[in-house]
């Protein structure tokens, strides 16, 4: 056998051995993540994950809504925060877009989870499963938050954009469906969550009677919290890490409130009785913001990275009832409800009035207090037509009265969603 024949035989043998030996040799798996198939055996974790994905949007929701309204101002070095605080962002360049992405993902996951439950459990069992309630309620709450924060959103995954009013209507339908499932599943707490959610959404849609009816189902002392935790960085409450003394002081309570600060009680004084209002928790120790220039007044409602943010509570429900009463001309009833809440907070009653505008002012103040740093304020000012006058009163040339009143859609969604045109002239950005 000459050399050429030898090496040919060797080469052929090597290839043959190699082919035999290599079967499956390139297969690897990722031991730190789940595949979709894996999740069919982890339905409770899926449902928990769905709910958790919604909660982690709440802290940024609070911050951006606070900067857009009159709760917070920028005291750091981030252009994104600065642009929102000063009302000088436009369609394609505001930082709150990331928050929309998180909400949309939470909504998608909630819908995907419902399909998985139905496939794995079967339609009939899934229809009365607590897991389905969890997912349906989350889906509704995600649409509710989208409607509060953005002037338009896709109604479904990769679907066309609809107005925030339409998203809120969708949220109402979803709360209704989730309510029925919760009732069928015997999940009493989730029943209350869905009543509370629908109450808020109906208030925003102008269905005051419907809102009050739902709110009345929620007993005093009840709350549903968006849970945060120090257990993982993902669950840290960034309202604390970004706006609070001892952390990054990138945003402060807005300067208009500083004169009302009461150091002993670490709160703002009530504008009507001059009493410290513990609901408007604030703290100032002389620190400057991260910009090194501006005094920094910390929000003091959330003080640890694990501090929960209220998603719904009975106090908000009572205020919905008060507002419905005010809208119906029942001024005394509205004041009675507000005074009851004030009493519970240790405050004196509001000066009685028969002036509807005064009652509106009271409502705004009480809603600010009860939902302090929960992302509601700018929504209230906007829907009650007070946002422009609020900023006009600042008399601040860098923060003019004419400013965006709500966030525009995430332009990444518009760019990547085939059903939406990424054209600024077609996208909304309402101003005051």
């Amino acid at each position: 056998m000459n050399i050429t024949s030898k090496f040919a035989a060797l080469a052929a043998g090597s290839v043959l051995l190699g082919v035999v030996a290599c079967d499956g040799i390139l297969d690897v798996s990722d031991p730190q993540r789940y595949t979709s198939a894996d999740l069919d055996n982890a339905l409770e974790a899926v449902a928990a994950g769905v709910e958790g994905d919604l909660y982690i949007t709440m802290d940024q929701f609070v911050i951006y809504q606070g900067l857009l309204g009159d709760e917070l101002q920028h005291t750091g070095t981030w252009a994104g925060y600065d642009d929102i605080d000063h009302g000088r962002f436009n369609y394609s360049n505001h930082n709150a877009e990331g928050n929309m992405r998180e909400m949309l993902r939470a909504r998608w996951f909630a819908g995907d989870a419902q399909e998985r439950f139905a496939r794995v459990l079967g339609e009939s069992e899934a229809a009365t499963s607590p897991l389905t309630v969890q997912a349906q309620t989350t889906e509704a709450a995600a649409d509710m938050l989208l409607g509060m924060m953005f002037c338009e959103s896709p109604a479904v995954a990769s679907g066309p954009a609809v107005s925030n009013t339409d998203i809120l209507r969708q949220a109402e339908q979803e709360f209704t469906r989730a309510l029925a499932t919760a009732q069928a599943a015997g999940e009493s707490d989730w029943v209350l969550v869905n009543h509370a959610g629908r109450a808020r959404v109906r208030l925003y849609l102008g269905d005051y009677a419907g809102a009050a009816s739902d709110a009345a189902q929620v007993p005093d002392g009840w709350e549903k919290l968006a849970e945060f935790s120090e257990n993982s960085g993902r669950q840290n409450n960034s309202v604390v890490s970004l706006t609070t003394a001892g952390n990054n002081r990138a945003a402060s309570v807005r300067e208009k409130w500083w004169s009302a600060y009461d150091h002993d009680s670490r709160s703002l004084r009530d504008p009507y009785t001059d009493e410290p209002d513990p609901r408007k928790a604030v703290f100032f120790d002389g620190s400057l913001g991260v910009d090194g220039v501006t005094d920094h007044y910390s929000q003091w409602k959330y003080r640890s990275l694990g501090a929960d943010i209220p998603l719904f509570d009975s106090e908000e429900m009572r205020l919905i009832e008060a507002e419905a009463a005010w809208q119906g001309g029942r001024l005394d009833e509205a004041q009675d409800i507000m005074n009851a809440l004030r009493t519970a907070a240790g405050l004196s009653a509001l000066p009685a009035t028969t002036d509807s505008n005064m009652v509106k002012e009271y409502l705004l103040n009480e809603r600010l207090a009860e939902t302090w740093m929960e992302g509601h304020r700018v929504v209230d000012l906007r829907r009650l037509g007070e946002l422009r006058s609020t900023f006009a009163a600042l008399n601040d040339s860098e923060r003019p009265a004419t400013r965006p009143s709500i966030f525009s859609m995430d332009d990444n969604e518009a760019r990547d969603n085939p059903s939406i045109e990424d054209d600024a002239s077609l996208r909304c950005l309402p101003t005051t």
Partner: protein
Amino acid sequence: MERPTLVRYFGTAAAVLTAAALSVNGVAAQVGGVAGQVIDATSGAPINGAQVAIEGSQRGGLTNAAGRYLILNVPAGPQTVRVTYIGFRTHEATVDVTPGGTVTADFRLEVSAISLDEVVVTGTAGPVEKRKLGQSIASINLESVQENMPIEGFSQALEGRIPGVRSVGVTGGVGAGRELRVRGTSSFTLNQRPVMYIDGVRVDTNAGEWGSLAGATCCAFSGGAGEDRLSDLNPEEIERIEVLKGAAAATLYGSEASGGVIQIFTKRGRSNSAPQFTFSSSLGFNRHRENFPTTLYPNFTGPNGFQALDSNQSLIENGLVNSYDLTAQGGGEDVTYFIAGGFNYEEGSVKPNDQTRGNMRINLNWTANDKWTVGINSAYSRNKIYSLQSGNNWMSLLGNATIGSPKNATEETPYGEPWISVENIKEVETFSNANRWTGGLNVAFQPSQNFTNRLTVGLDNVDDQKTRTLPFGFFYVYAGTSGERNIGYRSARTFTTDYLGQVSFDLSDNIASQFSFGAQGFWETAETSMATGKEFAGPGVTTVGGAANTFGDEEFNETINLGTFAQNRFEFGDRLFITGGVRIDGNSSFGQNYGAEVYPKVDAAYNMNSSDSPWLPGVVSNLKLRAAWGKAGKAPGAFDQFQTFDPTAVLGDVAGVTPNNPGNADLEPEKTTEIEFGLDAGLFDDRLGLSVTYFDATTKDALFQIPLPSSEGFQDEQLQNVGEIANKGVEVSLDASPVVARGFRWSTSLNFDWTKNEIVELGEAAQDGILGDEREGFPIESLFGREITGWDPATRMHTRSDTSVYQGQPLPTWSGAFSNTLTIGAVRVYAQVRGEWGAMFSNSDRPYRIRQQAGDEYLSTLDASGNATAVTDSLSNYYSLVSAFDSRDQIRLQELSLGYQLPSSLVEKVGLGRSTLTLSGYNLYWWDDCECMDPSMQYAGGSSFNFSGFLAMPQPRKFLISFRTAF
């Protein structure tokens, strides 16, 4: 799915080799020896380390310090002895070896500025002379480099020496990452560091921070820079480095090679040689240039009257540099050895920051008989780094000292530190402690003169433990004063198997053929685990378990690549060489719907010289024309193809999941096809060497993170093969020895490159040619930003554009280095100047400082009372609206040395041989066009695409006195 075992593909290679061995009949031979001396023809000085080989056999060796060699067991009869040494012409001589006797062959080598006879192995399917190659391959003889300039770290060895190879210090802490890339950027997403091998074993080249796992407070461990695993290497162990720069050259490395391949060859023993020792030691210091932007700070006081400090005066110190290395080379008839031990200690100029490194190596080579050679390489290093806090990091030491307003200075924060006091940062202890073992077994089997086999198996194992301690009682943003402890462990392993078979035969009298075939495989795993403890009860306890809250995390990556190749080289006479080949690769990261990838290549080289081509211009003594075309690839990330959901804690401590990666079952490698033309010429009797290369590379199926609508649910974007990237350029190197005389020599070297990078296409997902931050028609990672358009007197503010405009590209268009060596008697002077032009970077420090009312640029606009002026207001408003983009253009006095060879009459009295004393300086000065400390700064280390120097640390200058001797 089970992980595969190594047995399968080791078994394949072993089976092949065994079969080959069994088929061959051994034949006893009569043998003799060859001995002689190799000297410099001009100076008469002996040449140490010249390679002497007996053609067509495994026999050979290196000359010793006296230039002498001895090769035994050479088959009797006529034999060709070949001597090569970089910088000199190759010589051959035919001798008649007598059985039992030793024949003498002395050589006088002439200086040559080109090295076409140099034998290279990287990317060539076996040892081959450069003159036979159509692709460009660069090599550095590190021993020669160290004659001029002590090299304290591996990455310095590549700096400014090879056109097209960019090795730049981007972060100034000792042990920190350097940017290393070849021929620009050819990917949007994948690591651009070239693949690296040491003696045929693939090695880990990680150069960046791990990331803040396990709830660690930003930014574990030391900020963005991290540590560079190349800092584990000891340059004293390295003989030479070969660099493949493009796809045309790197085809045989397949799916990892489009960013270039670097092969490091460590030193070998010497046959029939008594142990030759080399001892080297350096002592010196690092010291930053005093150009930190705080010179005006002492003009200001804080609220309590405390005078602010200038960081140039109070932070910059001398950082000690101290190293010792001892090597031994020698061997007998059949066994040679190289043993090395080294110790290096280096402090940064801003402290605390230091590196302590110990290295040990043993290389053994056993020539069992005429057919079998076995080599074993084993190297261990221990590299402990006290890392500097820097980069985009709340705890950036220099950042805090230079970005706060002096008007806020207090006794606790004397620089007006905005986040954390410098004194508190100095209490943070951040360590990286890496143990590394790299080893390999090389078996060569040559059953006949024209059939060789080589098998290499090896392992690179890095175990790196990191710790960071934020002590109790000191304030740190996000962590408060209750302290924190982070520990991390990274274990990276790379197994390499490489088989090469080569058959040479003559097709006719004038046409020879060399057929090569083989297989390569590597298996990489990287496991990282971290634990964090937060909130201690008091000082004194600093273990994770001692904290009130503890967290853990873990990451794992695994990649397997198998490839097989075949190529044939046709040799027409000794002038024309044409090579064609193909490699087929499978990789575990390819999508499950995608099979194997095929990488073809073809290259040609045509050699001429003044003797056989009299029509050449008289000044041309040698000329090689070359061309190459080839394809190489870059595989996706280890698990990018899988659709996944992340496990995550939700609702406090409940196990949940969240959508993560949408996955892509069709994922392919990026494919780079390159064509290259060039020439290598020796002019003026090879006293001047010129090498010119033009390359044109196109990367197709470039991976890009395609954003999916958020409404579709997944966190991550989807990796898709969508893009096309073009890279073209010209590389020129000129080496000359204009003056070579007894007692005086002048050598000069100039290399420069021009590179153009452009995104050709971004695929269907792009809108108006824009996708993410990338735009068609622009370089990758181009800088875009809004611009100031005017001044509005009504508002007394600047106006800015609504859209972002192009500001520049991140990598230089032009770069080059010019070095000169003058040898006058026993004195040698060397200098290297390096420059680059055409790059821009986002100088994020600058607007940040101005918004903070900090830095000399801002403070210089204040009036005598320290109050803002109209200029101040204008500057503040300007940088509240736009980012700062600055030029990276620079000329740098990179290396300077003065060496003195001690008189032999002196050193021999103490038993030493050739001894040199050298004074050297590194990174001594630079001229730039930016409002910054150093235009090369980059906060995110050496493996990042990010080109921002935000809060980064500039490179210090280094001053050394070194002693080197052989005995």
